[in-house]
């Protein structure tokens, strides 16, 4: 990270969806705004802008974080994954996205990208936990609910989302 002389700005660089990016940001810039306004990745949604709804969830070094309450300068040197980063080179959706679609867990879609990123972080957490475990374990229904507590959905009533996450995480951790 380099401070731009005579300004209140910094040049930061980070790995965004596996590609190195450099961007100049104000000291007070919020990661959500940088992703959407400077880097044109509008899949990350601004909802409440106060860390309540989880629509802005992205992965920072594999873990879910609210990008609306994250200083952009703190992204320097980190690995950031947004919903756009889950699509592979063949433009296939991530299994999480497919499972949500198959289970009717998407309605208006505004919460979906944040919801997917939170499920992804739970998947990452269990994959890493299982690496050192003798027997593979998957999160329980209660653990999934707890993990998704910071993602609000005003359409689905959560049931389909939880069912989809449970189905996916039983198989893919």
């Amino acid at each position, binding site marked *: *990270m380099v401070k731009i002389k005579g300004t*209140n700005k*910094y040049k930061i660089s980070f790995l965004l969806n596996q590609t190195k990016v450099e961007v100049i940001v*104000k*000291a*007070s810039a*919020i990661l959500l705004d940088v992703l959407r306004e400077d880097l044109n990745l509008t899949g990350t949604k601004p909802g409440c*802008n*106060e*860390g*309540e709804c*989880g629509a802005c*969830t992205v992965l*920072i070094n594999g*873990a*879910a*974080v*609210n990008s609306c*309450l*994250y*200083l952009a*300068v*703190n992204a320097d040197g980190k690995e950031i994954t947004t919903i756009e980063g889950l699509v592979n080179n063949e433009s296939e959706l991530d299994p999480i996205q497919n499972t949500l679609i198959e289970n009717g867990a998407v309605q208006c879609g505004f919460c979906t990208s944040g919801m997917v990123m*939170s499920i992804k*972080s739970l998947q990452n957490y269990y994959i890493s936990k299982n690496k050192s475990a003798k027997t593979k374990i998957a999160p329980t229904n209660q653990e999934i609910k*707890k*993990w*998704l*507590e*910071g*993602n609000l959905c005003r359409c689905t009533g959560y049931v389909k989302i939880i069912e989809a996450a449970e189905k996916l995480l039983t198989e893919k951790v």
Partner: protein
Amino acid sequence: MNFNIEIPHSIDELVLTLNKFKNKNYRIGAGCTDLLMELKNNSASNLTIINISQVDDFNFNNVKLSNGNVDIGANTTAFKICENENILENYKTLHEAALNLASAQIRQVATIGGNICTASPSGDLICALMALKAQLYIKNSLGENREISILDFYKGVRKTDLKHGEFLSHLSLNSNNKNAFKTKSGFIKIGTRKSMECSVVSLAYHIQIDKKGNIIETGLAFGASAPIVKYATRACDFLIGKKIDSLSKTEIDTFAKLVVEYASPIDDIRATAWYRKQVLFNISKSILEKNIEK
């Protein structure tokens, strides 16, 4: 929202930065989850955020065992506290408070030092740390150290004993009493929703019991029912020496009344003062009515 930022990368750099800014308008930010919300609503002019999240220091960022005690660096995230097996095993009240803090996303970045120094009357981690009588370690802009019990740290709503130019470096939890055979330790949070909710009332308790079932040490604190998180000394003292399994209904009621004596809640958008006192009374009783865990 507009502010300058300083980003120290070590404790020494942090001390130097504080020295440089000690007479200026600054705030210290770690996870910044509370601070950014505050600044989004009320942006101050000429403000510098001393962003400590990139301080690369193991003791500042982690939980470690130290001569039988547990030291927790101020920059330790709530997530790391949830994951720490020693805390889960020996200080369940802190584990549960951390697990009930905000949401999974916030716990990834919010720090224990942030929760302590924000000094919210409903601070979840504060409540548990008071029940555990944590000792706080503070450093100033000259690199000098001092320590203070968390029980003496709070001076009013969002006011602490932390002076300009000082920062919290870590806190220490005493090991449980060597005669403790069982502990009854937990955290109860009452709110309108389980997650992302500022408590209507919260209660942290850590009761140590010897082999014969006698209560030998007690810590109990509650939040959201007074200008600061309160430690209920007389209620704790009342339990010492009593047998946990044979407390009478009258004794349990007396204990709960002694807890409520420390409450001075207000009516606000979340609950009325009457409701808060009633809930505090009921949850205080409930901890003695439950079977002993662990």
